[in-house]
């Protein structure tokens, strides 16, 4: 066996095992289906458009929530990074809000917004505010003191100081925070759909299980994993490309 085959050997063996099991012992099972049947179900979902619609919904809600959460987190982080007094004052409020698990807000979002995109966006936004806020605050604190001295010497206004000195200096780390946010946003949006929101990939997975269609269920599970993997890799690639362009050594 060649070296290149090694990483895929175990998954292939497992899939073959599942195929054999589902075709013999578990033939009438509501829980397992042969991977080949799952592949067919995936192809059917491709064909009738339900796959794209659900994927689009989940990714759209995740992206909107990430955008909203990151914007709030980044501006708060900028503020708290610049002013030690603001950071010390808001410390307690942040420590009280931050540990609330984002999924605990699903019922509240459901009450306020009803089902649909808005509730999902709000929960994703809540979850993505924190990593952005923390990383941004740390990044602003670690801006080269020389740069701040330059801005003082030039007598820049606070706004100019933020826009012309601080933001460019923290941009590479802002992208690191965004990449982490992408992973969080995807996980949270799928979770919201599984727990409550009747839309998107998570709901499709849930409904496939409830209608006792294990092939479709495994197809969705595989698809959610594949989409998550692809998007995380793409985000990592984009972040590294950005860091290289800015002359930083990729982390």
């Amino acid at each position, binding site marked *: 066996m060649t070296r290149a085959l090694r990483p895929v050997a175990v998954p292939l063996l497992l899939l073959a095992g599942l195929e054999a099991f589902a075709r013999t012992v578990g033939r009438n099972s509501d829980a397992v289906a042969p991977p080949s049947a799952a592949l067919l179900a995936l192809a059917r979902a491709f064909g009738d458009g339900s796959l794209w619609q659900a994927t689009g919904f989940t990714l759209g809600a995740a992206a909107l929530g990430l955008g909203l959460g990151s914007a709030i987190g980044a501006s708060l982080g900028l503020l708290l990074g610049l002013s030690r007094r603001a950071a010390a004052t808001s410390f*307690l409020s942040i420590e009280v809000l931050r540990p*609330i698990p984002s999924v605990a807000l699903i019922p509240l979002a459901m009450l306020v917004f009803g089902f649909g995109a808005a509730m999902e966006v709000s929960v994703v936004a809540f979850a993505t505010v924190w990593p952005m806020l923390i990383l941004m605050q740390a990044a602003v604190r670690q801006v080269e003191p020389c740069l701040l001295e330059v801005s003082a010497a030039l007598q820049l206004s606070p706004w100019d100081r933020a826009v012309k000195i601080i933001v460019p200096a923290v941009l590479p780390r802002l992208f690191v925070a965004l990449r982490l946010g992408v992973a969080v946003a995807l996980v949270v949006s799928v979770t919201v759909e599984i727990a409550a929101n009747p839309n998107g990939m998570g709901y499709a997975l*849930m409904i496939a299980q409830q209608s006792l269609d294990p092939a479709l269920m495994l197809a969705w599970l595989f698809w959610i994993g594949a989409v998550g993997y692809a998007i995380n890799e793409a985000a990592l690639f984009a972040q590294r490309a950005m860091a290289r362009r800015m002359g930083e050594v990729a982390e």
Partner: protein
Amino acid sequence: MRRLDPRALVASVLLLLGFVALWWVVSHAGWLSRAFMPTPESAFAALVQGMISGPLAGYTVATIGRMVVGWLLASLLGIALGTLIGNSPAARTWLQSTLELLRPLPASALVPVAIAVFGLSSSMVLFVVAFGAMWPVLLATIHGLASVPRRLEEVARALQLGRLAFVWKIGLPNAMPDILAGMRLSMTVSLIVSIVGEMIASQQGLGQTILLAARTFQSSELFAGIVLLGAIGFASNSLLAIAEARLLRWQRA
């Protein structure tokens, strides 16, 4: 950040109280519907009453128990499997890419599959919690074992340590910071998956309580549940941070 400057502490308490006061004004002025914005005092009353005479205390214990047992299982499994895989370069080449591939899968996506396989039971939720929370510990253990410094390996060879002694005396202590960081992340995952599991599989606990409260428009109970879940998250995270600082004291020396 953790320096206790008394003036800043007072200011931060005042800001928090200010937020609560804002909540009080907003809810009393009726700017937002009572259906989802209870007054602070009614949320507090629901919390106290539920804890003392209602079922809230029992649900809290159930959720904490699920989270802790799942987390312990996840940590044990993660460290054991991680040691097996991380200790052998062969196992790493065969398995690492599969593990990396599975990592971004949301743990909650396994709930429907687990329902199909195990049915709606509390052991099903426990299984998903343990399985979902295992990944951070597993990957951290593998990473920590794989990054033992060259010199320590040479020391082990010079001392003629056996494989087991090497893992126990050098490998795992070296991986400890990674493992503890993974275990902290895994605790967060455990709480989240416990809540989702309770919501979907109708297992008694805070997750189910807040979902039912929302469905029956009992916003006071809903807020009480959210406050309790926040408290659980805060307490578990702080306890682990303290434990981590103590366990790793020897490294900074």
